[in-house]
């Protein structure tokens, strides 16, 4: 049994799209393989100490909550970057994904400071991009997988030219609605607009994150995990992917 330490950033502020669902999936899938997930909240005023967390999680919030935590998160930037450079895994969803870039210019022109972990900048657009999304990803060479989720964001996120997106948009908007890019990947860090929540209906990504976190804890290559009966997960994924193909996103 391995204890996997998860640092959950601002669970009391950034939890708008059922982020606790993602944590529940990581915890159960770890437990079913005999591991224990030790989830520790990291809130305003707490430090992120590199090496302590095997996985960092940051969710999304409404504009008001995002603005409340942005300055504190920027102050944690060096700790977060050091953690990811040291091999910790990270999942950032929606608002958390935006704030881990270089900055977010919100509606009205105010600028929220960013962390600079992901090579992107975000600018709020006039209309929100809302709807079901389907992506095609290749996190490991030769392993093509799909991610199905839901997006709801006003921010347009532009990746630097050399940046690696999380996936290619099959249906929906993605980062900016024009580039066909969605999310961003830096080493073991993943940022994405997809909620729904993301992990229940995309268990392969949950397992990928757990493997990276185990590699950080144990050293060496990410270990293989015992496959699980994912019948309900497959059905939920199919329905969600079908929704994205059939009705995609809309501007609002």
């Amino acid at each position: 049994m391995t204890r996997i330490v998860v640092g959950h950033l601002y669970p009391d502020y950034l939890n708008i799209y059922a982020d606790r669902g993602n944590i529940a999936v990581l915890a159960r899938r770890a437990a079913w393989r005999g591991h224990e997930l030790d989830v520790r909240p990291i809130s305003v005023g707490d430090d992120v100490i590199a090496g302590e967390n095997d996985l960092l999680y940051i969710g999304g919030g409404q504009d008001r909550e995002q603005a409340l935590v942005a300055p504190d998160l920027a102050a944690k930037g060096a700790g977060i970057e050091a953690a990811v450079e040291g091999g910790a895994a990270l999942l950032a969803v929606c608002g958390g994904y935006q704030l881990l870039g270089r900055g977010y210019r919100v509606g009205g022109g105010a600028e929220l400071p960013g962390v600079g972990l992901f090579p992107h900048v975000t600018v709020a657009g006039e209309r929100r991009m809302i709807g079901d999304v389907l992506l095609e990803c290749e996190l490991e060479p030769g392993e093509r997988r799909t991610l199905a989720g839901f997006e709801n964001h006003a921010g347009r996120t532009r990746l630097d030219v050399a940046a690696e997106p999380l996936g290619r948009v099959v249906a929906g908007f993605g980062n900016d609605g024009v580039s066909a890019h969605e999310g961003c990947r830096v080493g073991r860090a993943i940022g994405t607009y997809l909620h729904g929540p993301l992990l229940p209906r995309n268990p392969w990504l949950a397992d990928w994150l757990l493997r990276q976190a185990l590699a950080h804890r144990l050293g060496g290559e990410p270990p293989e995990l015992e496959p699980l009966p994912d019948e309900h997960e497959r059905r939920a994924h199919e329905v969600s992917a079908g929704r994205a193909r059939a009705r995609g996103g809309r501007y609002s």
Partner: protein
Amino acid sequence: MAALRIPLSLEVAAARAAARLSRLARTGGGTTVPGKLLWKLDPGAIDRLAARLPLGSALVSATNGKTTTASMVAEILEPRLRLAHNAAGANLVSGVASALLARPEAELGLFEVDEAALPEVARRVKPRALCLGNLFRDQLDRYGELELVAERWRTVAAELGGGTTLVLNGDDPQIGALVGDARRAVVFGIDDPRHARPSLEHAADSKYCIACGTPYEYRASYVGHLGDYRCPRCGHARPDLEVSATAIELHGLEGAAFVLITPDGTRGIELRLPGLYNVYNALAAASLARELGASLDEIAVGLGRFRAAFGRFERIAIEDRSLLVLLIKNPAGANEVVRTLVAGGAPRLALIALNDAIADGRDVSWIWDVDFEPLLPSLERLVVSGDRAAELALRFKYAGFDPAAIDVLPSLDDALDHGLALTPSGGELAVLPTYTAMLGLRALVTERGYARPYWERAA
């Protein structure tokens, strides 16, 4: 451009004919068809119809409880007044227009209004009273962020001016703060810390001071973020209550009782509806009815007589079994449904149905914010249904419920048959549907002859 002005009476006749056609065509209750037509013919006609009401109009809006609250007010006032009331829950501009058309002899308009439609309806109807019950996160894909709805409500409150009394739930920080915008306001809330929750629930939304962003301190939190709050930094706090509920007794699934305190005196209130959230609905209804001229006796009698609005804690007998239908539509509301079910003896079997049509919210992530966990210890079998049934299966699987005890039946027809077959003779099946799933289930039991169509019920 000069427009040909069609006389209001002709428009009204055409719209009423459309309602009859809609019912004949069996496409629905005809609850919004005439209003939609009138809206198309002449949007200003709604303003004129509302202006004809001799006693004016009252509006009720809230994330949760607006249908129940408005129906309670109707129950209190109906013995004495002829009401135009959108009782079937059609609560957009077209639904209000339809209710106005359906009752030309009405003296008072009583309308529940969708949160997002409130600015438009308020501008047209110019209500004498506006009752605002609560604001929770709800269908973010449709309404946008909570803050956006709150901002629109602030604008409405500021625009309405001195002719409108605001009836406000002071226990909700966003709504309590509107006191400052109103020339005249009635503030209601709960004063009974015995019923406070040990901590704020996960779905609490407005938990940071609206003035300075500091987390509120709660002397008591009752439902979601509703309660007796105070900011430790700047002192922003719940306003003084003019109408309040105290000495609350909750009787499981069967009802609730409380003492209503008003400036005119106090009354014991007996409700046939369960749960603290229905105490909030009754408080809102009592405060609004009082503002509309009801006496304390009328309020106590009306509330005591009131039975559930359709789909909200509705019992439907099906031969020797029954359905207990509890609408769920967002985390705060669903949490109260769960809490009430558990208080009445948690069920061993439940049917939960999740759809993702526009009226349900296309984004189903909210089910992960609901605290379903209190149901788990006694739950033995779960039937999940609706277009997103598999998503519900995952919600319970990852809460620790045995996936082998979950039956995934997306068709409501199949799920209802299966759920009833699993229910012992003489037993009751708890059914928790989202809005369109509830309409679908009601249509099924109506087709089978066990319930009356909702448009007949409202009459």
